């Protein structure tokens, strides 16, 4: 499974990068979302998989190995929550941007940074 997941993770990275490279802000945001999930899955996989056995102690406080490494889980939990916060804010910002400018085409926004809107992209 790890090998399969490794390939899957690579694919998620590739998909999300492809989305991040689009002109439409919506696609970029979807790329952000997907990227975050790819990273989570990477941490989960890279730390090693242990089927079915969560790190829950028995009532007497003992636990026999093998059990799933709880640390990456905690890290991913934190990362998921943080990613959600970032995504929510990004959406809000996009909403506001759309309200102010009426577009989600990032190329139309570049003039805010550089003159020469007519110049073709390099």
């Amino acid at each position, binding site marked *: 499974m790890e090998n399969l997941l490794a390939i899957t993770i690579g694919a998620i990275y590739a998909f999300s990068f492809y989305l991040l490279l689009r002109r439409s802000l919506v696609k970029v945001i979807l790329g*952000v979302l997907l*990227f975050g999930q790819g990273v989570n899955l990477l941490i989960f996989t890279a730390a090693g998989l242990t089927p079915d056995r969560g790190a829950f102690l028995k009532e007497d406080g003992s636990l026999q190995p093998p059990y799933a490494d709880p640390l990456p889980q905690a890290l991913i939990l934190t990362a998921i929550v943080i990613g959600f916060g970032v995504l929510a804010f990004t959406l809000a910002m996009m909403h506001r941007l759309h309200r102010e400018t009426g577009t989600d085409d990032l190329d139309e926004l570049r003039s805010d*940074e550089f003159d020469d809107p007519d110049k073709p992209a390099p």
Partner: protein
Amino acid sequence: MNLLLVLPIFLPLVSAAILLLIPSAKLQRWIHIAACLAHFAASALLLCEVLRKGITASQLGNWPAPFGITFVADTFSAMMVLITGLMGFLVAIYSLDDVSSEHQKRGFYSLYQVLLMGVSGAFLTGDLFNLFVWFEVMLMSSFVLLALGCSRHQLSGGVKYLVLNFLSSSLFLTALGLIYSVTGTLNMADAANILKSSPLGISSMSAAMLLMVSFGIKAGLFPLFAWLPASYHTPPVSVSAIFAALLTKVGVYALVRVFTLIFTIQVDFTHDILIGISLITMLTGVLGAAAQYETRKILSFHIISQIGYMTLGLGFFTEAALAATVFYIIHHIVVKTNLFLIAGAISKLKGTAELKKIGGLYAESPWLALLFLIPAMSLGGIPPLSGFFAKFALVKEGVSLHAWLSVFVALAVGILTLYSMTKIWAEAFWKASPNENGDFGLGDAPDPTPTSSTTPSLPSLPASFWAAITAMAAVTLAISSWPQWLFDLSERAAAELSTPSHYIQAVLHSKQ
């Protein structure tokens, strides 16, 4: 000690929460200032403590390293926290009259506090994942601070800022996952211990490179800096000033920490790459500034260029070069923040900081002119101001390492930096205001009618502006006049950085 180490994050967090609860704008302002002052005082005490007792660590939750999270202050991080506190306090004063009441209503002060919290946390933590969390705390509040105001430019700059910084964070997490998978630890000192003594070090080289890219984005290295000039000129001045002071420096700090502590097994590879990138960063930054005519844009590009100097010292990777880097960071933070504040004062006086539309400030506001000259000439590296010593220390090390190309680039960039500073000076201060009738020279001969009488329509600057700008100029002058004390600190910091065993010892074997 336990207390002092957490105060720099605890105080801003609590004040941020309280500020969210309090509706009264006036009370908010006072709490804001008081909280920043307290943060500054706490960070000053922390530095004193570190200077007295050496590297100190606190095992949060009382779980020994590497299992829990360790907060650790060595001289470098304590210095960084102190400068954060100082800049936080001074920019907070400036912000009182700078941001609109709508900003204040929408949580500006809370966000500002959280920014300070995130930055301080990033400096103090000894845990890689915790570093990521502090990065996010800092970034989240900076996202909001940047977008607050919601003008088209802020938002479109903000989108770029956000997406690129998100990329940085995700690459960081990717690297983190790989590092955990290889070493089974997140504690930096522990990771250093594991990696230095095994082939694992080499096999985690990709992770190291990913970290370099991730921190490089945050620090604003070539070719990853695009988010910075795209966004820094858009928010209110106090926001871009505190950004300029802290954000990129957190990236530099992280680079320094990771590449002096953890990844030092293939210095000829990683650090040589750093040198190359630093040189290009210096050049591209300064050339970017040469193309700009808006004060804050010029200054933004200069941040990038100066970051190159800092990472160059890291790339040299000798004790003296690291000391130069530390000195450079501190000097740069003070000077660059001040320049941003002055740019704000110029906009306040003239309605814009667009160099082609303004002028005449030399006659109208001589004090501002003087206060501008101090940081500007310091940035340009004119002795005996602080920037000269920073560059001097670095170039001296470059000469003794026979890194001629680096020396050449560093000095050439210095010349171009000075050129940019004189551009601002000549355009904003010397040149006559475009609304006056062009060049009517005073002539070589004495002019019977003094023409410098201030026009009555000129708005005056609030006292808070003067206070912040003057205080920062005073700090610059203090560093310039007595550079030795800062060099002492920097050398101490560099000594600790270049012999990580003390740091590792302090983290892994401290009692608490």
